[in-house]
């Protein structure tokens, strides 16, 4: 595999370039004082930069420089996603050739070495970083920036599938399938692997994978179509994320107070319960499924879905808030189906109002 880790200049590097240009001035400043009076170079630089008059020309020059950085970072993001797909593809073909005994042995060893946990943590970081990028950059003037962030987003769904798939007992094979299924930007190699692996799944699973989403089967009114409901939850979720972001940016004492109040609030507890009920039901169902179909090893859908809440884990400490987010994410990812979606819509709205009350 090609060992390529795209690098990009940091803002420090950009700053260094302008530092070099200011070098002569700094030297002059240093030489005009006696050794006893001499300031530290960093202090001189900071003082000089403060005093340097900002003109449209100097600003335009700096903008050019950071725009070049920006383009390079977009190239890097694309290259990193392509690289990720190649590594995943290589992993898939190796996993595919393992016997079930080999898989079991490898899983146990990886678990012992803490590799699965590390993967989950890093996957959560990727998902979180992407969420942040999506939030910050989706309205940018630069169309390419939006496209690249969206492109990364298509792969993010699959990022944690591997680790999570294994952690919930899916095994290497199940984790691998979940990783591809979660990604919406699988390259040819990945999709071919998925196709080969899917053939090993039980017929019921293959049917599920081949099945097109049919809203007619949902028995819902048009305004309650799965798409509409999913979009409502997504919008509410975004609002909730924004409010959580506000809580996270409070000073530590205030944040702690808000979170404690939130966790003690009876309505918030109620929301958590209502959301956890279908989530647990879903979890139990797939655990049962795993036992019923050991060759599939895991509930593919469940694993794909539970990979999403990883993004929100660690954002907030009190368990009640985490439960709400976990429940909300799981239900949303559950494919906007049955009664669970209606519960999610109602409770997500209630939670949003609750957060609003606590943060306003």
């Amino acid at each position, binding site marked *: 595999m090609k060992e390529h880790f795209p690098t*990009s200049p940091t*803002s420090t590097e950009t700053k260094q370039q302008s530092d070099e240009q200011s070098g002569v001035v700094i030297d002059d400043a240093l030489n005009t004082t006696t050794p006893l009076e001499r300031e530290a170079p960093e202090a001189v630089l900071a003082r000089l930069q403060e005093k340097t008059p900002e003109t449209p020309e100097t600003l335009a020059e700096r903008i050019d420089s950071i725009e070049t950085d*920006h383009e390079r970072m977009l190239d890097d993001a694309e290259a990193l996603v392509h690289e990720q797909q190649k590594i*995943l593809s290589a992993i898939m073909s190796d996993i595919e050739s393992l016997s079930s005994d080999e898989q079991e042995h490898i899983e146990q060893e990886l678990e012992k070495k803490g590799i699965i946990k*590390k993967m989950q943590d890093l996957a959560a970081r*990727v998902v979180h*970083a992407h969420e942040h990028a999506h939030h910050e950059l989706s309205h940018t003037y630069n169309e390419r920036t939006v496209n690249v962030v969206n492109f990364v987003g298509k792969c993010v769904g699959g990022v944690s599938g591997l680790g999570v798939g294994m952690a919930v007992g899916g095994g290497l094979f199940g984790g691998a399938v979940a990783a591809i299924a979660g990604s919406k930007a699988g390259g040819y190699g990945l999709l071919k692997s998925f196709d080969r692996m899917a053939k090993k799944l039980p017929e019921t699973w293959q049917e599920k994978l081949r099945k097109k989403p049919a809203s007619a089967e949902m028995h819902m009114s048009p305004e309650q179509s799965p798409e509409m409901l999913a979009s409502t939850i997504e919008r509410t979720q975004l609002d909730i994320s924004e409010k959580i972001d506000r809580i996270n940016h409070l000073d530590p004492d205030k944040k702690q107070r808000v979170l404690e109040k939130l966790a003690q609030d009876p309505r918030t507890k109620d929301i958590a319960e209502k959301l956890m009920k279908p989530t647990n039901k879903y979890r139990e169902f797939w655990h049962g499924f795993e036992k019923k179909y050991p060759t599939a090893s895991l509930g593919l859908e469940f694993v794909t879905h539970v990979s999403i809440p990883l993004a929100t884990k660690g954002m907030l400490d009190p368990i009640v808030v985490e439960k709400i987010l976990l429940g909300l994410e799981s239900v949303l990812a559950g494919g906007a189906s049955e009664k669970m979606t209606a519960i999610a819509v109602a409770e997500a709205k209630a939670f949003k109002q609750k957060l609003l009350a606590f943060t306003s």
Partner: protein
Amino acid sequence: MDHDIHTLREKYDRILLENETLRELNDALREYNAMLKEFHEAIIVEKKRYEIMHDDH
């Protein structure tokens, strides 16, 4: 002139912020890719170990 500087300053600050966000995303992706490679290598090593163990038997 002041207006120009203000507009340019805003643009500069905005791109700077965007770059910081992209850098965080790239760092996370880079670390995750490195982890995936470690994961892949571990699979290969453990597979070999499993084979050796069973060859001995």
